[in-house]
């Protein structure tokens, strides 16, 4: 647009002048037309080099958009959360894993209780009439079914989580035992190397003397054999001692492996018993809690035969309103429960060493930030797109590209677009 304005600014005075001088009007028009054809503006859109084609480096334009600082802030915040999630965490001890698993189970339990409560009936509303009683019973049955289903899911979840915790503990204990065994084996190897070196050093002078004798050409065959035998005996003596130590070490290592295996198995069994006991306690606690809630849902039926018609109508309205609200609340409760459960699943996975994504509050924050970032990016891109289309039309381009790898021809519309976007927000 700025270029069109510059053309107008340049030639309109000439046009007016030519109006005054009617004899030169045709010539002025011709000159003006020729000037336009020549493309006296610095963009000759239809030149051989441009041929109506332009391109935009959208990424560069985005950096000049007035909202870019906000976009960058959001990008930095997202990168910060991802960076924190990817940081190496100190390995947890079995006790820590068990404690955190318990905490997460408690959170899952709370989420399910909240869901059951939200799907239940307000006891204060019960007892208004037969219609309400019917609804109450239906809802109590629905709640019981939902609670039963939740309980079954919880049972499966708890067992799966405890199995995972048990597997993780067993892996850690086995790894610790392997590390100990490896350290012991390395120690034995070191001892064997030390002994071999010590023996070689002790016998070095004797070995040297024997080898020197062997290199003497004047030895007879018998003498040479005798010296060779002595050298062989020396090597054998050293090898026997080292082999004896190696055999003793191998036996000791075998015994140590057995001992470690027994210790590890005992530890795993102890942890297993403990976790199974915890699982049983958690399940019975959950069964009791759900049972208590369901017992609290039932309301004493109220006789409705003697109710006057207007009260019945009012009860009908209340019933409809109540049913609608129940559906909405239940839906919301289910959605909230699913979101919480999904996040807790991620936390369980992270606890057991799987996945490096952000969890808990950080995951929620990450989702919010990503949504805001997407929205803002879209808003910026849409505006750039609109302005690019407007500029392209005004300047007479036939096609405008983004994401160009090289451009020996065409016109780079990027700077015009940056200027245009910046000037709109000044």
């Amino acid at each position: 647009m700025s270029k069109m304005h510059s053309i107008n600014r340049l030639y309109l005075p000439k046009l007016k002048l030519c109006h005054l001088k009617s004899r030169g009007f045709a010539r002025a028009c011709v000159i003006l037309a020729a000037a336009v054809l020549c493309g006296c503006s610095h963009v000759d859109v239809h030149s051989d080099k441009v041929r109506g084609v332009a391109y935009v480096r959208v990424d560069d334009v985005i950096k000049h958009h007035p909202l870019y600082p906000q976009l960058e802030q959001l990008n930095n915040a997202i990168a910060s959360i991802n960076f924190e999630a990817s940081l190496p965490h100190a390995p947890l001890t079995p006790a820590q894993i068990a404690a955190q698993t318990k905490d997460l189970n408690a959170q899952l339990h709370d989420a399910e209780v909240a869901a059951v409560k939200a799907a239940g009936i307000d006891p204060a509303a019960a007892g208004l009439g037969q219609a309400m009683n019917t609804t109450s019973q239906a809802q109590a049955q629905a709640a019981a079914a939902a609670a039963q289903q939740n309980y079954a899911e919880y049972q499966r979840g708890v067992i799966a989580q405890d199995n995972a915790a048990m597997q993780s503990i067993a892996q850690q204990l086995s790894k610790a035992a392997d590390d100990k065994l490896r350290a012991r084996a390395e120690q034995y190897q070191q001892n064997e190397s030390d002994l071999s070196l010590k023996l070689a050093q002790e016998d070095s002078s004797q070995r040297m003397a024997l080898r020197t004798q062997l290199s003497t050409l004047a030895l007879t065959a018998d003498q040479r054999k005798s010296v060779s035998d002595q050298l062989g005996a020396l090597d054998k003596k050293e090898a026997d001692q080292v082999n004896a130590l190696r055999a003793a070490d191998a036996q000791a290592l075998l015994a140590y492996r057995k001992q470690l295996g027994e210790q590890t198995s005992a530890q795993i069994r102890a942890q297993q018993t403990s976790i199974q006991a915890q699982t049983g306690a958690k399940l019975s606690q959950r069964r009791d809690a759900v049972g208590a809630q369901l017992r609290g849902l039932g309301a004493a039926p109220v006789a409705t035969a003697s109710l006057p018609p207007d009260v019945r109508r009012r009860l009908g309205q209340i019933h409809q309103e109540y049913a609608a609200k129940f559906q909405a609340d239940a839906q919301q409760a289910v959605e909230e429960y699913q979101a919480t459960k999904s996040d807790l699943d991620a936390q369980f996975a992270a606890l057991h060493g799987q996945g490096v994504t952000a969890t808990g509050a950080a995951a929620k924050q990450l989702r919010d930030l990503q949504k805001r970032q997407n929205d803002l990016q879209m808003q910026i891109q849409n505006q750039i797109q609109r302005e690019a289309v407007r500029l392209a039309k005004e300047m007479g381009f036939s096609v405008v590209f983004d994401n160009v790898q090289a451009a020996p021809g065409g016109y780079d519309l990027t700077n015009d677009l940056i200027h245009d976007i910046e000037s709109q927000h000044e």
Partner: protein
Amino acid sequence: MKRRFLSTLALVLGLMAAIGPAAIAADLTDVGFIDQSALGNLPAFVSANQQLAAYKAQLNGQFAAAMRGARTDADKQRISLQFQQEFSDKQNELVGPLYQRTQLAIANVSTSKKLSVVVDKRIVIYGGQDITGDVINAVRGSQAMASPQASPAPSSIGFVDQSALANSTDVKNASDQLQKFQAAQQPIYAARYKNATNEVSKQQVMADYNKAIQDEQSKLLKPLVDQTKTATATVARSKNLLLVVDRADVVFGGTDITQDVQNALNK
């Protein structure tokens, strides 16, 4: 009066001759684009992809079971290759015919509209001919599709396969070095991040970390990128191309200069 008209006409013609071919060069009108995501949403594609996803889920179970039974690394590799082949065969069986039909439809529509190049909608900001509707109609039609009689006309829009260029030894080495640098820097900045007492200092650590990575990237990769861009531009100029786009954005036609750029880089 007549003499004045003739002199004016001569002036105009003179000017026209002076500006020569620049003013009479034809604008590029043989560029088409297609919304590939709309094609992917066609019921036939959606159904094929669903079947493929179901097959993959079933295959994953079998793969896991087979891998559990593998005793050696060679066994594992053999099993991996076998399952990859099975998946690839199924993909060809389910999606292959649809993909071929779509390619033929694009070629036929492009030829009938005399387009020299068709690109993905994502890279067209303004102008061009949208052939999405025509291609969808052709794909949906029941009649058999023949190959177009003529190949696309030479195009002023070129393309280069960026992924092929990124496979060069130099680029791979630079990428590996960058990854190693990143892996080495992460624990250093992780420690600083942990010690940061408030959000402002954490943000500062993040900014420093990003800057360190970006600086290294500029040091290692930017020279290679610049070199590639220069080579691409030189080749494009020698072939009288106006613009060069990435191969991934080209659906039909265009002028492939990948090999020429590779040759120029290897000189």
